[in-house]
Protein backbone atom coordinates (compact mmCIF):
# COMPACT_ATOMS: atom_id res chain seq x y z
CA UNK A 1 0.00 0.00 0.00
CA UNK A 2 2.95 2.30 0.70
CA UNK A 3 4.12 1.96 -2.85
CA UNK A 4 0.65 2.57 -4.31
CA UNK A 5 0.39 5.66 -2.14
CA UNK A 6 3.84 6.82 -3.33
CA UNK A 7 2.89 6.48 -7.01
CA UNK A 8 -0.56 8.04 -6.54
CA UNK A 9 0.95 11.04 -4.70
CA UNK A 10 3.50 11.38 -7.47
CA UNK A 11 0.71 11.53 -10.07
CA UNK A 12 -1.28 14.00 -7.97
CA UNK A 13 1.83 16.18 -7.64
CA UNK A 14 2.36 16.06 -11.42
CA UNK A 15 -1.22 17.24 -11.99
CA UNK A 16 -0.98 19.83 -9.24
CA UNK A 17 1.95 21.51 -10.98
CA UNK A 18 0.07 21.90 -14.26
CA UNK A 19 -3.49 22.12 -13.00
CA UNK A 20 -4.59 24.79 -15.47
CA UNK A 21 -3.80 22.55 -18.44
CA UNK A 22 -5.27 19.48 -16.76
CA UNK A 23 -8.46 21.30 -15.80
CA UNK A 24 -8.88 22.81 -19.27
CA UNK A 25 -8.44 19.39 -20.83
CA UNK A 26 -10.88 17.81 -18.39
CA UNK A 27 -13.56 20.39 -19.14
CA UNK A 28 -13.05 20.83 -22.87
CA UNK A 29 -12.26 17.29 -24.04
CA UNK A 30 -15.74 15.78 -23.42
CA UNK A 31 -17.42 18.81 -24.98
CA UNK A 32 -15.18 18.59 -28.04
CA UNK A 33 -15.74 14.87 -28.54
CA UNK A 34 -19.48 15.20 -27.89
CA UNK A 35 -19.94 17.97 -30.44
CA UNK A 36 -17.79 16.25 -33.08
CA UNK A 37 -19.28 12.78 -32.72
CA UNK A 38 -22.78 14.01 -31.90
CA UNK A 39 -23.00 15.91 -35.17
CA UNK A 40 -21.15 13.32 -37.21
CA UNK A 41 -22.72 10.10 -36.02
CA UNK A 42 -26.32 11.02 -35.30
CA UNK A 43 -27.60 8.77 -38.06
CA UNK A 44 -25.55 5.78 -36.91
CA UNK A 45 -26.79 5.93 -33.32
CA UNK A 46 -29.75 3.67 -32.50
CA UNK A 47 -33.03 5.01 -31.09
CA UNK A 48 -33.84 3.97 -27.52
CA UNK A 49 -37.26 4.43 -26.04
CA UNK A 50 -37.69 7.22 -23.43
CA UNK A 51 -34.03 8.24 -23.72
CA UNK A 52 -32.58 11.07 -25.85
CA UNK A 53 -30.74 9.68 -28.86
CA UNK A 54 -27.33 11.07 -27.89
CA UNK A 55 -27.58 9.47 -24.42
CA UNK A 56 -26.44 6.31 -26.21
CA UNK A 57 -23.18 8.02 -27.19
CA UNK A 58 -22.15 9.47 -23.81
CA UNK A 59 -21.02 6.21 -22.11
CA UNK A 60 -18.65 5.61 -25.04
CA UNK A 61 -17.21 9.11 -24.79
CA UNK A 62 -16.65 8.68 -21.05
CA UNK A 63 -14.98 5.30 -21.54
CA UNK A 64 -12.73 6.79 -24.22
CA UNK A 65 -11.66 9.57 -21.84
CA UNK A 66 -10.97 7.04 -19.06
CA UNK A 67 -9.12 4.58 -21.31
CA UNK A 68 -7.01 7.17 -23.14
CA UNK A 69 -6.18 8.97 -19.87
CA UNK A 70 -4.73 5.77 -18.41
CA UNK A 71 -2.97 4.79 -21.62
CA UNK A 72 -1.33 8.09 -22.53
CA UNK A 73 -0.30 9.06 -18.99
CA UNK A 74 1.39 5.77 -18.16
CA UNK A 75 2.92 5.37 -21.61
CA UNK A 76 4.60 8.78 -21.49
CA UNK A 77 5.84 8.33 -17.95
CA UNK A 78 7.39 4.94 -18.62
CA UNK A 79 8.66 5.56 -22.14
CA UNK A 80 10.46 8.77 -21.14
CA UNK A 81 11.84 7.51 -17.82
CA UNK A 82 12.31 3.75 -18.21
CA UNK A 83 16.07 3.64 -18.77
CA UNK A 84 18.27 2.79 -15.79
CA UNK A 85 19.87 6.23 -16.14
CA UNK A 86 16.49 7.92 -15.90
CA UNK A 87 13.93 8.28 -13.15
CA UNK A 88 12.86 4.62 -13.03
CA UNK A 89 16.48 3.65 -12.38
CA UNK A 90 15.86 4.58 -8.75
CA UNK A 91 12.83 2.29 -8.69
CA UNK A 92 14.82 -0.63 -10.17
CA UNK A 93 17.49 -0.38 -7.45
CA UNK A 94 14.96 0.10 -4.63
CA UNK A 95 13.57 -2.74 -2.48
CA UNK A 96 10.19 -2.45 -4.27
CA UNK A 97 9.19 -5.73 -5.92
CA UNK A 98 8.36 -5.78 -9.62
CA UNK A 99 4.78 -6.92 -8.93
CA UNK A 100 4.25 -4.05 -6.49
CA UNK A 101 5.84 -1.54 -8.86
CA UNK A 102 3.77 -2.55 -11.89
CA UNK A 103 0.58 -2.68 -9.84
CA UNK A 104 1.27 0.71 -8.26
CA UNK A 105 2.13 2.30 -11.57
CA UNK A 106 -1.08 0.97 -13.14
CA UNK A 107 -3.29 1.86 -10.21
CA UNK A 108 -1.73 5.33 -9.75
CA UNK A 109 -3.79 6.80 -12.59
CA UNK A 110 -7.17 5.71 -11.18
CA UNK A 111 -7.87 8.90 -9.16
CA UNK A 112 -7.17 11.30 -12.03
CA UNK A 113 -8.91 9.04 -14.58
CA UNK A 114 -11.95 8.64 -12.38
CA UNK A 115 -12.24 12.36 -11.58
CA UNK A 116 -11.79 13.29 -15.23
CA UNK A 117 -14.41 10.78 -16.40
CA UNK A 118 -16.94 11.54 -13.68
CA UNK A 119 -16.66 15.25 -14.50
CA UNK A 120 -17.16 14.31 -18.16
CA UNK A 121 -20.44 12.52 -17.31
CA UNK A 122 -21.61 15.56 -15.37
CA UNK A 123 -20.73 17.96 -18.20
CA UNK A 124 -22.28 15.78 -20.91
CA UNK A 125 -25.49 15.29 -18.95
CA UNK A 126 -25.76 19.07 -18.65
CA UNK A 127 -25.21 19.48 -22.39
CA UNK A 128 -27.74 16.77 -23.16
CA UNK A 129 -30.26 17.95 -20.59
CA UNK A 130 -30.79 14.42 -19.41
CA UNK A 131 -29.78 12.79 -16.09
CA UNK A 132 -28.95 9.07 -15.92
CA UNK A 133 -30.27 7.04 -12.97
CA UNK A 134 -28.16 7.58 -9.82
CA UNK A 135 -27.42 3.89 -9.23
CA UNK A 136 -26.39 3.56 -12.86
CA UNK A 137 -23.94 6.42 -12.42
CA UNK A 138 -22.48 4.78 -9.32
CA UNK A 139 -21.94 1.52 -11.20
CA UNK A 140 -20.48 3.53 -14.07
CA UNK A 141 -17.69 4.74 -11.76
CA UNK A 142 -16.64 1.11 -11.34
CA UNK A 143 -16.61 0.64 -15.13
CA UNK A 144 -14.61 3.85 -15.53
CA UNK A 145 -12.00 2.47 -13.13
CA UNK A 146 -11.81 -0.72 -15.20
CA UNK A 147 -11.38 1.34 -18.38
CA UNK A 148 -8.60 3.36 -16.74
CA UNK A 149 -6.88 0.15 -15.61
CA UNK A 150 -7.08 -1.46 -19.06
CA UNK A 151 -5.74 1.77 -20.61
CA UNK A 152 -2.96 1.99 -18.03
CA UNK A 153 -2.04 -1.68 -18.62
CA UNK A 154 -1.78 -0.98 -22.34
CA UNK A 155 0.30 2.08 -21.44
CA UNK A 156 2.73 -0.03 -19.39
CA UNK A 157 3.16 -2.52 -22.24
CA UNK A 158 3.67 0.18 -24.87
CA UNK A 159 5.92 2.17 -22.55
CA UNK A 160 8.16 -0.87 -22.16
CA UNK A 161 8.23 -2.19 -25.74
CA UNK A 162 8.13 1.08 -27.72
CA UNK A 163 11.36 1.89 -29.53
CA UNK A 164 10.52 5.16 -31.21
CA UNK A 165 8.55 8.09 -29.79
CA UNK A 166 6.86 9.22 -33.01
CA UNK A 167 5.97 5.72 -34.19
CA UNK A 168 4.53 4.81 -30.81
CA UNK A 169 2.48 8.00 -30.60
CA UNK A 170 1.02 7.24 -34.02
CA UNK A 171 0.27 3.72 -32.84
CA UNK A 172 -1.54 5.09 -29.81
CA UNK A 173 -3.57 7.47 -31.97
CA UNK A 174 -4.62 4.67 -34.31
CA UNK A 175 -5.32 2.39 -31.37
CA UNK A 176 -7.60 4.96 -29.75
CA UNK A 177 -9.52 5.74 -32.92
CA UNK A 178 -9.74 2.07 -33.86
CA UNK A 179 -10.86 0.92 -30.44
CA UNK A 180 -13.33 3.78 -30.12
CA UNK A 181 -15.22 2.51 -33.16
CA UNK A 182 -14.52 -1.22 -32.97
CA UNK A 183 -15.61 -1.40 -29.31
CA UNK A 184 -19.04 0.05 -30.09
CA UNK A 185 -18.22 3.12 -28.03
CA UNK A 186 -19.23 5.47 -30.86
CA UNK A 187 -21.24 3.28 -33.26
CA UNK A 188 -23.24 0.05 -32.69
CA UNK A 189 -21.53 -3.27 -33.42
CA UNK A 190 -24.22 -3.93 -36.02
CA UNK A 191 -22.65 -1.34 -38.31
CA UNK A 192 -19.69 -3.71 -38.83
CA UNK A 193 -19.74 -6.72 -41.22
CA UNK A 194 -21.42 -9.79 -39.71
CA UNK A 195 -18.21 -11.82 -40.01
CA UNK A 196 -16.21 -9.69 -37.54
CA UNK A 197 -19.02 -8.81 -35.13
CA UNK A 198 -18.48 -11.88 -32.86
CA UNK A 199 -14.79 -11.02 -32.60
CA UNK A 200 -15.44 -7.37 -31.78
CA UNK A 201 -18.12 -8.32 -29.28
CA UNK A 202 -15.67 -10.13 -26.99
CA UNK A 203 -13.12 -7.32 -26.87
CA UNK A 204 -12.86 -6.23 -23.22
CA UNK A 205 -13.41 -2.65 -24.37
CA UNK A 206 -16.60 -3.70 -26.22
CA UNK A 207 -17.81 -5.44 -23.09
CA UNK A 208 -17.17 -2.25 -21.13
CA UNK A 209 -19.24 -0.33 -23.70
CA UNK A 210 -22.08 -2.81 -23.44
CA UNK A 211 -21.99 -2.83 -19.64
CA UNK A 212 -21.89 0.96 -19.39
CA UNK A 213 -24.99 1.29 -21.58
CA UNK A 214 -26.60 -1.41 -19.47
CA UNK A 215 -26.05 0.46 -16.23
CA UNK A 216 -26.80 3.95 -17.59
CA UNK A 217 -29.65 3.50 -20.05
CA UNK A 218 -30.98 0.14 -18.99
CA UNK A 219 -29.85 -1.92 -21.99
CA UNK A 220 -29.94 -5.64 -21.15
CA UNK A 221 -26.58 -7.03 -20.00
CA UNK A 222 -25.36 -10.11 -18.18
CA UNK A 223 -23.57 -9.54 -14.86
CA UNK A 224 -21.03 -12.23 -15.76
CA UNK A 225 -19.72 -9.89 -18.45
CA UNK A 226 -17.97 -7.98 -15.66
CA UNK A 227 -15.51 -10.87 -15.45
CA UNK A 228 -14.07 -10.12 -18.89
CA UNK A 229 -12.59 -6.65 -18.16
CA UNK A 230 -11.57 -7.72 -14.65
CA UNK A 231 -9.83 -10.80 -16.05
CA UNK A 232 -8.20 -8.68 -18.73
CA UNK A 233 -6.68 -6.35 -16.13
CA UNK A 234 -5.34 -9.29 -14.10
CA UNK A 235 -3.92 -11.10 -17.12
CA UNK A 236 -2.37 -7.92 -18.53
CA UNK A 237 -0.76 -7.12 -15.17
CA UNK A 238 0.91 -10.55 -15.20
CA UNK A 239 2.22 -9.89 -18.73
CA UNK A 240 3.45 -6.44 -17.68
CA UNK A 241 5.25 -7.85 -14.64
CA UNK A 242 7.13 -10.17 -16.98
CA UNK A 243 7.98 -7.33 -19.39
CA UNK A 244 8.96 -5.00 -16.56
CA UNK A 245 11.36 -7.60 -15.16
CA UNK A 246 13.18 -7.44 -18.50
CA UNK A 247 13.79 -3.69 -18.36
CA UNK A 248 14.51 -3.51 -14.65
CA UNK A 249 17.61 -5.69 -14.99
CA UNK A 250 20.41 -5.56 -17.54
Amino acid at each position, binding site marked *: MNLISAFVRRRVAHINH*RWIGELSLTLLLPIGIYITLGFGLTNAIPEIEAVPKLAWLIPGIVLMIAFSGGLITVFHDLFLNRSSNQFY*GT*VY*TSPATIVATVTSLTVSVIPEGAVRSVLAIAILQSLLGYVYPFTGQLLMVFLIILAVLIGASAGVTLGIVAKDAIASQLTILLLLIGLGFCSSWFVPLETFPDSIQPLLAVLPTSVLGELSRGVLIGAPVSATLFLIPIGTVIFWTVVNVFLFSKIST*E
Partner: protein
Amino acid sequence: MEASISLKKIGKVLNGSSVLAGLSFGIERGSIMAVLGPNDSGKTALLKVIAGFSKPEYGSVFIEGMDVQLRRIETASVLGYMPQEVNLDRHLTVLENLQFHGRLYGLSRERINRQIASLSEQLGFRAFIHDFPDDLSSGYQKRVMLCRTLLPDPQILLLEEPTSSLDLRSQYMVWDFLQEMRGSKTIVYTTQSIREAERVHDRIVIMHHGHVALDGTLDRLLENAGELFHFQIHFQKLPKDLYEEMSKLTTVVSPSQVGQVFDFYGRERKVFFDIMKLAIKKKLVDYSADKVGLETLIMTSTED
Protein backbone atom coordinates in the same frame (compact mmCIF):
# COMPACT_ATOMS: atom_id res chain seq x y z
CA MET B 1 37.89 -6.36 9.12
CA GLU B 2 34.77 -8.15 7.87
CA ALA B 3 33.80 -7.84 4.21
CA SER B 4 30.64 -5.90 3.55
CA ILE B 5 30.65 -6.70 -0.16
CA SER B 6 32.13 -9.86 -1.69
CA LEU B 7 32.52 -10.58 -5.37
CA LYS B 8 33.12 -14.18 -6.44
CA LYS B 9 34.40 -14.59 -9.99
CA ILE B 10 32.01 -12.03 -11.47
CA GLY B 11 31.77 -12.04 -15.25
CA LYS B 12 29.61 -9.73 -17.31
CA VAL B 13 29.23 -9.55 -21.07
CA LEU B 14 27.61 -6.59 -22.81
CA ASN B 15 27.06 -6.44 -26.57
CA GLY B 16 29.33 -9.41 -27.08
CA SER B 17 32.32 -7.99 -25.21
CA SER B 18 33.41 -8.81 -21.70
CA VAL B 19 33.01 -5.80 -19.40
CA LEU B 20 33.81 -7.67 -16.19
CA ALA B 21 36.16 -10.61 -16.37
CA GLY B 22 36.17 -12.95 -13.39
CA LEU B 23 36.43 -10.33 -10.65
CA SER B 24 36.91 -11.63 -7.10
CA PHE B 25 37.52 -9.37 -4.13
CA GLY B 26 35.97 -8.19 -0.91
CA ILE B 27 35.27 -4.66 0.32
CA GLU B 28 35.67 -4.07 4.02
CA ARG B 29 32.79 -2.74 6.08
CA GLY B 30 33.05 1.00 6.70
CA SER B 31 35.79 1.55 4.13
CA ILE B 32 35.91 3.89 1.14
CA MET B 33 36.95 2.40 -2.17
CA ALA B 34 37.69 4.57 -5.21
CA VAL B 35 37.37 2.84 -8.58
CA LEU B 36 39.35 4.44 -11.40
CA GLY B 37 39.99 3.52 -14.98
CA PRO B 38 39.55 4.71 -18.55
CA ASN B 39 36.17 4.78 -20.29
CA ASP B 40 34.67 1.30 -20.83
CA SER B 41 37.00 -0.22 -18.27
CA GLY B 42 34.03 -1.71 -16.39
CA LYS B 43 33.64 0.79 -13.53
CA THR B 44 29.93 1.44 -14.04
CA ALA B 45 29.25 -2.22 -14.82
CA LEU B 46 30.90 -3.13 -11.51
CA LEU B 47 28.64 -0.77 -9.54
CA LYS B 48 25.52 -1.96 -11.35
CA VAL B 49 26.36 -5.60 -10.68
CA ILE B 50 26.93 -4.85 -6.99
CA ALA B 51 23.64 -2.93 -6.90
CA GLY B 52 21.89 -6.02 -8.28
CA PHE B 53 20.49 -4.06 -11.18
CA SER B 54 22.79 -5.76 -13.67
CA LYS B 55 22.84 -9.54 -13.71
CA PRO B 56 26.28 -11.10 -14.19
CA GLU B 57 26.70 -13.95 -16.69
CA TYR B 58 28.56 -15.89 -14.03
CA GLY B 59 29.70 -15.48 -10.45
CA SER B 60 27.93 -14.01 -7.43
CA VAL B 61 27.88 -10.81 -5.41
CA PHE B 62 27.24 -11.00 -1.69
CA ILE B 63 26.07 -8.03 0.35
CA GLU B 64 26.37 -8.61 4.09
CA GLY B 65 26.49 -12.33 3.26
CA MET B 66 23.34 -12.27 1.10
CA ASP B 67 23.42 -13.13 -2.61
CA VAL B 68 22.31 -10.01 -4.49
CA GLN B 69 20.49 -11.94 -7.21
CA LEU B 70 18.71 -14.34 -4.86
CA ARG B 71 17.79 -11.89 -2.10
CA ARG B 72 17.28 -8.70 -4.06
CA ILE B 73 14.76 -7.08 -1.70
CA GLU B 74 16.93 -7.51 1.41
CA THR B 75 20.11 -6.38 -0.30
CA ALA B 76 18.41 -3.42 -2.00
CA SER B 77 17.26 -2.26 1.44
CA VAL B 78 20.84 -1.78 2.61
CA LEU B 79 22.17 -0.31 -0.65
CA GLY B 80 22.07 3.24 -1.95
CA TYR B 81 22.94 3.69 -5.62
CA MET B 82 23.56 7.05 -7.24
CA PRO B 83 24.02 7.08 -11.04
CA GLN B 84 26.20 9.58 -12.84
CA GLU B 85 23.38 11.14 -14.85
CA VAL B 86 20.81 13.31 -13.15
CA ASN B 87 17.69 11.15 -12.98
CA LEU B 88 15.37 13.19 -10.82
CA ASP B 89 11.72 13.46 -11.86
CA ARG B 90 11.76 16.85 -13.55
CA HIS B 91 8.01 17.33 -13.06
CA LEU B 92 8.31 17.09 -9.27
CA THR B 93 9.93 19.59 -6.93
CA VAL B 94 13.08 18.61 -5.05
CA LEU B 95 11.01 17.97 -1.92
CA GLU B 96 8.50 15.80 -3.81
CA ASN B 97 11.33 13.84 -5.42
CA LEU B 98 12.82 13.11 -2.03
CA GLN B 99 9.46 12.25 -0.48
CA PHE B 100 8.73 9.78 -3.29
CA HIS B 101 12.08 8.11 -2.73
CA GLY B 102 11.44 7.83 1.00
CA ARG B 103 8.07 6.18 0.35
CA LEU B 104 9.71 3.84 -2.15
CA TYR B 105 11.81 2.55 0.75
CA GLY B 106 8.78 2.33 3.04
CA LEU B 107 9.93 5.09 5.41
CA SER B 108 7.41 6.80 7.68
CA ARG B 109 6.40 10.39 6.93
CA GLU B 110 8.10 11.63 10.12
CA ARG B 111 11.35 9.92 9.25
CA ILE B 112 11.28 11.17 5.66
CA ASN B 113 10.72 14.76 6.78
CA ARG B 114 13.39 14.50 9.49
CA GLN B 115 15.94 13.07 7.06
CA ILE B 116 15.16 15.64 4.37
CA ALA B 117 15.48 18.52 6.86
CA SER B 118 18.79 17.25 8.17
CA LEU B 119 20.41 16.22 4.86
CA SER B 120 19.26 19.26 2.87
CA GLU B 121 20.84 21.44 5.58
CA GLN B 122 24.11 19.48 5.56
CA LEU B 123 24.30 19.41 1.78
CA GLY B 124 23.38 23.07 1.49
CA PHE B 125 20.29 23.05 -0.74
CA ARG B 126 17.58 23.74 1.83
CA ALA B 127 16.72 27.04 0.12
CA PHE B 128 15.91 25.23 -3.14
CA ILE B 129 13.72 22.48 -1.71
CA HIS B 130 10.59 23.74 -3.47
CA ASP B 131 12.31 24.31 -6.82
CA PHE B 132 12.15 21.97 -9.79
CA PRO B 133 15.34 20.04 -10.65
CA ASP B 134 15.65 21.81 -14.02
CA ASP B 135 15.84 25.16 -12.22
CA LEU B 136 18.93 24.06 -10.25
CA SER B 137 22.55 24.09 -11.36
CA SER B 138 24.10 20.68 -12.06
CA GLY B 139 26.02 20.97 -8.79
CA TYR B 140 22.85 21.32 -6.77
CA GLN B 141 21.15 18.57 -8.77
CA LYS B 142 24.01 16.27 -7.75
CA ARG B 143 23.63 17.31 -4.11
CA VAL B 144 19.92 16.49 -4.27
CA MET B 145 20.75 13.10 -5.76
CA LEU B 146 23.25 12.42 -3.00
CA CYS B 147 20.62 13.39 -0.46
CA ARG B 148 18.11 11.07 -2.12
CA THR B 149 20.63 8.20 -1.98
CA LEU B 150 21.28 8.85 1.70
CA LEU B 151 17.62 9.29 2.64
CA PRO B 152 16.91 5.64 3.62
CA ASP B 153 20.23 5.64 5.53
CA PRO B 154 21.75 2.71 3.59
CA GLN B 155 24.77 0.88 5.01
CA ILE B 156 26.41 0.71 1.60
CA LEU B 157 26.74 3.57 -0.87
CA LEU B 158 27.50 2.99 -4.54
CA LEU B 159 28.24 6.33 -6.17
CA GLU B 160 28.91 6.84 -9.85
CA GLU B 161 31.21 9.84 -10.33
CA PRO B 162 29.65 11.75 -7.43
CA THR B 163 31.52 15.00 -8.08
CA SER B 164 31.54 15.14 -11.87
CA SER B 165 30.28 18.52 -13.09
CA LEU B 166 30.62 20.02 -9.60
CA ASP B 167 32.55 23.23 -8.95
CA LEU B 168 35.56 23.07 -6.68
CA ARG B 169 33.70 24.23 -3.56
CA SER B 170 30.98 21.61 -4.08
CA GLN B 171 33.61 18.93 -4.69
CA TYR B 172 35.27 19.69 -1.37
CA MET B 173 31.91 19.66 0.35
CA VAL B 174 31.08 16.20 -1.05
CA TRP B 175 34.56 14.89 -0.23
CA ASP B 176 34.26 16.11 3.36
CA PHE B 177 30.80 14.58 3.55
CA LEU B 178 32.08 11.19 2.35
CA GLN B 179 35.03 11.38 4.74
CA GLU B 180 32.63 11.96 7.63
CA MET B 181 30.84 8.72 6.78
CA ARG B 182 34.07 6.70 6.82
CA GLY B 183 33.72 3.89 9.35
CA SER B 184 29.93 4.00 9.49
CA LYS B 185 29.15 3.25 5.83
CA THR B 186 30.84 1.23 3.13
CA ILE B 187 31.36 3.53 0.16
CA VAL B 188 32.31 2.45 -3.34
CA TYR B 189 32.58 5.22 -5.90
CA THR B 190 33.83 5.56 -9.43
CA THR B 191 35.72 8.61 -10.53
CA GLN B 192 37.84 10.06 -13.31
CA SER B 193 39.44 12.53 -10.91
CA ILE B 194 42.90 11.57 -9.69
CA ARG B 195 42.74 14.28 -7.05
CA GLU B 196 39.46 12.93 -5.74
CA ALA B 197 40.78 9.38 -5.50
CA GLU B 198 43.98 10.57 -3.82
CA ARG B 199 42.00 12.58 -1.31
CA VAL B 200 39.09 10.26 -0.47
CA HIS B 201 39.95 6.59 -0.23
CA ASP B 202 40.97 3.70 1.97
CA ARG B 203 41.64 1.69 -1.11
CA ILE B 204 42.02 2.40 -4.81
CA VAL B 205 41.12 -0.05 -7.55
CA ILE B 206 42.26 0.70 -11.09
CA MET B 207 40.26 -1.17 -13.70
CA HIS B 208 41.13 -1.98 -17.29
CA HIS B 209 39.08 -4.05 -19.74
CA GLY B 210 36.99 -5.53 -16.91
CA HIS B 211 40.02 -6.62 -14.91
CA VAL B 212 41.50 -5.15 -11.77
CA ALA B 213 44.80 -3.75 -13.00
CA LEU B 214 45.91 -2.41 -9.61
CA ASP B 215 44.40 -2.66 -6.14
CA GLY B 216 45.58 -1.22 -2.82
CA THR B 217 46.09 1.95 -0.84
CA LEU B 218 47.70 4.85 -2.65
CA ASP B 219 50.92 4.46 -0.65
CA ARG B 220 51.08 0.74 -1.40
CA LEU B 221 50.46 1.30 -5.11
CA LEU B 222 53.17 3.95 -5.32
CA GLU B 223 55.49 1.80 -3.24
CA ASN B 224 55.03 -1.05 -5.71
CA ALA B 225 55.83 1.34 -8.50
CA GLY B 226 59.25 1.71 -6.78
CA GLU B 227 61.38 4.80 -7.20
CA LEU B 228 60.13 5.26 -10.71
CA PHE B 229 60.56 8.63 -12.39
CA HIS B 230 58.81 9.93 -15.47
CA PHE B 231 60.90 12.09 -17.85
CA GLN B 232 60.04 14.07 -20.95
CA ILE B 233 62.59 15.84 -23.12
CA HIS B 234 61.30 18.22 -25.79
CA PHE B 235 63.52 18.57 -28.83
CA GLN B 236 63.21 21.12 -31.60
CA LYS B 237 63.57 18.12 -33.90
CA LEU B 238 64.08 14.59 -32.64
CA PRO B 239 66.04 12.53 -35.21
CA LYS B 240 65.26 8.83 -35.54
CA ASP B 241 68.84 7.70 -34.95
CA LEU B 242 69.06 9.70 -31.70
CA TYR B 243 65.74 8.26 -30.53
CA GLU B 244 67.02 4.75 -31.19
CA GLU B 245 70.33 5.47 -29.49
CA MET B 246 68.60 6.84 -26.36
CA SER B 247 66.09 3.98 -26.31
CA LYS B 248 68.92 1.42 -26.26
CA LEU B 249 70.26 2.67 -22.92
CA THR B 250 69.64 -0.12 -20.40
CA THR B 251 68.51 2.27 -17.68
CA VAL B 252 65.73 3.69 -19.87
CA VAL B 253 62.30 2.11 -19.23
CA SER B 254 59.32 2.23 -21.66
CA PRO B 255 60.72 4.81 -24.10
CA SER B 256 58.34 6.37 -26.61
CA GLN B 257 58.32 9.24 -29.07
CA VAL B 258 55.39 11.64 -28.94
CA GLY B 259 55.92 14.18 -31.71
CA GLN B 260 59.27 15.77 -30.93
CA VAL B 261 59.19 14.60 -27.31
CA PHE B 262 61.25 11.72 -25.97
CA ASP B 263 59.12 10.16 -23.18
CA PHE B 264 60.61 7.57 -20.84
CA TYR B 265 60.78 6.22 -17.29
CA GLY B 266 63.79 5.49 -15.11
CA ARG B 267 64.43 3.88 -11.75
CA GLU B 268 66.70 6.73 -10.64
CA ARG B 269 67.34 10.35 -11.52
CA LYS B 270 70.79 9.48 -12.88
CA VAL B 271 69.26 8.07 -16.05
CA PHE B 272 68.22 11.60 -16.97
CA PHE B 273 71.86 12.66 -17.12
CA ASP B 274 72.78 9.62 -19.23
CA ILE B 275 70.16 10.72 -21.73
CA MET B 276 71.22 14.37 -21.54
CA LYS B 277 74.80 13.39 -22.47
CA LEU B 278 73.41 12.10 -25.78
CA ALA B 279 70.72 14.72 -26.25
CA ILE B 280 72.83 17.78 -25.55
CA LYS B 281 74.21 17.64 -29.12
CA LYS B 282 70.74 18.54 -30.40
CA LYS B 283 68.68 21.65 -29.82
CA LEU B 284 66.50 21.16 -26.71
CA VAL B 285 63.29 23.09 -26.07
CA ASP B 286 62.16 21.89 -22.63
CA TYR B 287 62.23 18.97 -20.20
CA SER B 288 60.27 17.59 -17.26
CA ALA B 289 61.09 15.06 -14.55
CA ASP B 290 58.46 13.83 -12.08
CA LYS B 291 58.27 11.07 -9.55
CA VAL B 292 55.57 8.65 -10.66
CA GLY B 293 52.14 9.45 -9.16
CA LEU B 294 48.70 7.93 -9.42
CA GLU B 295 48.11 9.50 -12.80
CA THR B 296 51.15 7.81 -14.31
CA LEU B 297 50.26 4.56 -12.60
CA ILE B 298 46.85 4.65 -14.24
CA MET B 299 48.35 5.50 -17.61
CA THR B 300 50.91 2.71 -17.44
CA SER B 301 48.64 0.08 -15.91
CA THR B 302 45.85 0.65 -18.45
CA GLU B 303 47.99 0.69 -21.57
CA ASP B 304 46.76 -1.66 -24.30
